[in-house]
């Protein structure tokens, strides 16, 4: 516990220090990187005993704010999230240093680093807070500082609007949290999480609390209907910030939900199916919208929503198992959800960082203007490949392990649960399969259109690779992906430890062994696969040496010139899928009208996907609100008699309402 507090102090102190060091560039970067490395390694070091041993520790000092008390606690659940922060923050921080070098003249990097370090401190506090007021304070501050980080390029109007939308949606989500914690505080007559965990809640109250928690934490995590800020915030933010955001900041929503589940033991029966439904819908719609995107960071943002959907599926089946008394299903479900939190944090930040370096080299985020970059950007390309393989959940990488656990929980549910449970589990399993398939299509499209084939943009200049300061942290993240993919024993046992803590069961060694056994045999099969692959490569090399190889242009059915325009673009690759799901995604294809009059020289065809909740729900509500307030403004018409008339009206109303008239 002391080490954890030390890491907090390091971060806070260096944040303030960096604020004033903007002029001496070298020192500023050094302090920033050094503090990040120190704090993240301390976090790693702190979280291991809690994950292995499973014990908890509390640190408490009085804080004279009403209801408030500064209590920080560490337990396996928080420790798991500490570990996730450690790797994401470290990698994206160091990458950020390299990424922002060119901005040094125009923008004040000291302030940016200050906000970055402060955000990390707040994330640590949110994840370990044990008092509702401290949690809410850290939560709100995290939203505000996140706003300042997102709007780094605030000269662009779209960036400002994206930041503003983010601020409103998450802030209004927090209001639900306010009500939830107030109600819980009253039920437990104290704002301390431990007291809340002991209190008894009326059945009706738990339902209301759960809905409020879902909306409040869902707004931050990006569940489907309230995800609208995510696709706008990520393209606007610098890529190391969006890596940290989709890596960890949206996971605080998941952490909040898990903490709520831990506090309210007996959740209503319908909570499992609801979370499963949200997970399925978020996943499917997230990946379908991602398929329709043409901007790389918007595509990755929608994939964050999809992966949050997968995590919600894990938590949903865990809830279902817990409600119906099957402890093993609950255990595996929660462990799958938690492991996917870590995996998604790692491979999503890897993808965002590589997208950032692609944008830094090519200057644009539009996929259809890229192509054949693997030859120019070898490091970024290969790391993006590893990232996309792991996000699609294909074997050999960490995505597969966590999706495998969620599948296991789902199919255990199919076998053991009652009729209604089986239907829910089967629908969830089918939607997870659909999500996995569509994600594979989306990332096959993304990787191949960006890195393979020929360059589609008209300017044929050479793109230079990014400095090692940028692909170094990405290499570190890729290494973690492969390590979890091939040797998952340690990480999965950590996930099981925190899952045990979540369902408040003592971890039995034999049981975890029994649960771990299938995963280990999966990895054995994968080792054999690698062995066979090695053998094949060897014999292919033998064959290649005996017979000559020729390199010639791609076969184009005999046409002389092979222009780059005949290549399949991102929209054409995704068009069959989107046409299939047209009504779910309102997929529109626009033809440019300008060539209608004379001979059609340059026809243009573009396809667009409309984000349904944003354009059919939230924007109309805001417009209606503005129109209503416009009408109301006419009340203030400037005439004094009218104002006095309002006063007289008020007086008479009060008299009529409250006066002791003689009966």
């Amino acid at each position: 516990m002391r080490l954890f507090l030390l890491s907090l102090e390091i971060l806070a102190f260096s944040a303030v220090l960096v604020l004033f060091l903007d002029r001496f560039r070298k020192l500023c970067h050094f302090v920033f990187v050094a503090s990040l490395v120190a704090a993240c390694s301390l976090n790693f070091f702190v979280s291991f005993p809690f994950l292995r041993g499973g014990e908890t520790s509390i640190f408490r000092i009085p804080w004279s704010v009403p209801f408030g008390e500064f209590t920080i606690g560490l337990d396996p659940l928080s420790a798991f999230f500490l570990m996730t922060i450690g790797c994401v923050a470290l990698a994206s921080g160091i990458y950020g240093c390299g990424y922002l070098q060119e901005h040094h003249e125009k923008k004040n990097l000291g302030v940016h680093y200050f906000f970055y370090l402060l955000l990390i401190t707040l994330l640590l506090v949110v994840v370990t807070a044990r008092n509702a007021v401290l949690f809410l304070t850290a939560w709100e501050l995290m939203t505000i500082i996140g706003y300042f980080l997102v709007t780094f390029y605030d000269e662009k109007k779209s960036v400002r609007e994206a930041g503003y939308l983010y601020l409103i949606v998450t802030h209004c989500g927090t209001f639900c949290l306010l009500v939830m914690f107030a109600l819980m505080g009253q039920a437990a007559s104290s704002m301390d999480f431990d007291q809340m965990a002991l209190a008894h809640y009326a059945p009706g109250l738990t339902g209301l609390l759960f809905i409020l928690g879902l909306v409040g934490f869902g707004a931050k995590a990006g569940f489907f209907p309230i995800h609208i800020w995510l696709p706008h915030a990520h393209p606007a933010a610098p890529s190391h910030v969006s890596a940290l955001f989709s890596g960890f900041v949206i996971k605080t929503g998941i952490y909040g939900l898990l903490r709520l589940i831990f506090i309210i033991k007996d959740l209503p029966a319908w909570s499992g199916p609801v979370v499963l439904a949200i997970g399925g819908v978020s996943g499917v719609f997230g990946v379908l919208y991602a398929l329709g995107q043409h901007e790389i960071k918007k595509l990755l943002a929608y994939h964050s929503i999809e992966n949050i959907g997968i995590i919600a599926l894990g938590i949903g089946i865990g809830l279902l198992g817990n409600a119906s008394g099957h402890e093993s299903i609950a255990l595996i479900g929660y462990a799958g959800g938690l492991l996917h939190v870590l995996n998604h944090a790692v491979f999503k930040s890897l993808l965002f960082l590589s997208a950032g370096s692609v944008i830094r080299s090519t200057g644009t985020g539009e996929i259809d203007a890229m192509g054949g970059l693997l030859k120019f950007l070898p490091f970024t390309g290969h790391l993006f490949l590893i990232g996309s393989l792991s996000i699609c959940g294909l074997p050999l990488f960490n995505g597969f392990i966590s999706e495998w656990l969620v599948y296991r929980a789902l199919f255990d549910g199919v076998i053991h649960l009652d009729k209604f449970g089986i239907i829910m589990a089967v629908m969830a399993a089918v939607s997870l399969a659909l999500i996995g398939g569509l994600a594979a299509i989306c990332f096959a499209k993304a990787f191949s259109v960006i890195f393979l084939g020929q360059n589609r943009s008209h300017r044929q200049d050479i793109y230079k690779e990014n400095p090692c300061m940028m692909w170094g942290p990405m290499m570190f993240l890729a290494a973690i992906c492969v390590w979890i993919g091939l040797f998952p024993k340690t990480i999965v046992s950590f996930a099981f430890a925190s899952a045990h803590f979540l369902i408040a069961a003592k971890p039995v060694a034999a049981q975890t062994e029994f649960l771990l056994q299938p995963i280990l045999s999966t990895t054995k099969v994968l080792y054999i696969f690698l062995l066979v692959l090695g053998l094949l490569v060897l014999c292919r090399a033998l064959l290649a040496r005996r017979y000559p190889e020729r390199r010639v242009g791609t076969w184009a059915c005999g046409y002389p010139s092979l222009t780059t325009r005949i290549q399949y673009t991102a929209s054409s690759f995704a068009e069959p899928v989107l046409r299939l799901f047209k009504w779910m995604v309102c997929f529109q294809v626009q033809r440019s009208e300008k060539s209608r009059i004379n001979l059609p020289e340059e026809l243009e065809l573009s396809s667009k996907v409309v984000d349904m909740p944003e354009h059919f729900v939230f924007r109309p509500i805001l417009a209606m609100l503005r129109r209503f307030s416009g009408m109301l403004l006419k009340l203030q018409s400037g005439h004094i008699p009218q104002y006095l008339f309002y006063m007289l009206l008020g007086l008479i109303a009060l008299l009529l309402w409250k006066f002791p008239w003689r009966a």
Partner: protein
Amino acid sequence: MNTVWIDMALAVVVILAIGLLGTSRLGSIVRLFALQSFILAFLPFLLEGGIGIHKVVIATGTLIVKVIAIPAILFWAVRHVSIRRDTPAIFGGSASLLVGGFLIGLSFFLSSRLVLSGKPFSDLLIPSAFSTLFIGFLVIISRVKAITQVVGYLIMENGIFLFALLLFETTPLLVELGIFLDIFVGVFVMGIIINHIQNEFDHMDISQLTSLKE
């Protein structure tokens, strides 16, 4: 014997208020207000309990403030104004009289229906106080010129002063004087503001002062 005189005085006060509703010349409006205040000044003496220092001070205070000082300021302001006439904005002259009558009826109905314990020395007092108050309110709402609004405000003050008569003994002298001082300073500041409006807009028509709106 006294109650007859008191009722007579109260009736005259209400009649003067109605008279004020009817006139439209600024000069006569101010003179009517001065007359009403003059009557009010002598009302305490009609109450029972002889002539105490308290009553004398109140009477002289009202005389100085409401009969001499405030009309002087208003006449000084009126002299600056070229147009001497003030037409009611919302509804015509006779219509405002009708509304005035309705308001007096309303105040009589109000005081009869109000559950008010404690016997005031004349049952006419509360209705007349309410009616003066409502007429003052009506003058502020309906009239266009700034000076008439000030006079309307002062009519309201007179109505409130009638209520003050009820609790003649309880409020200490200091508080009464403080109230007079505040009213005087209030009107004084309004006078200055009217002067500024006159210089700035070279008219005093409140209905044109509507640039500040949404």
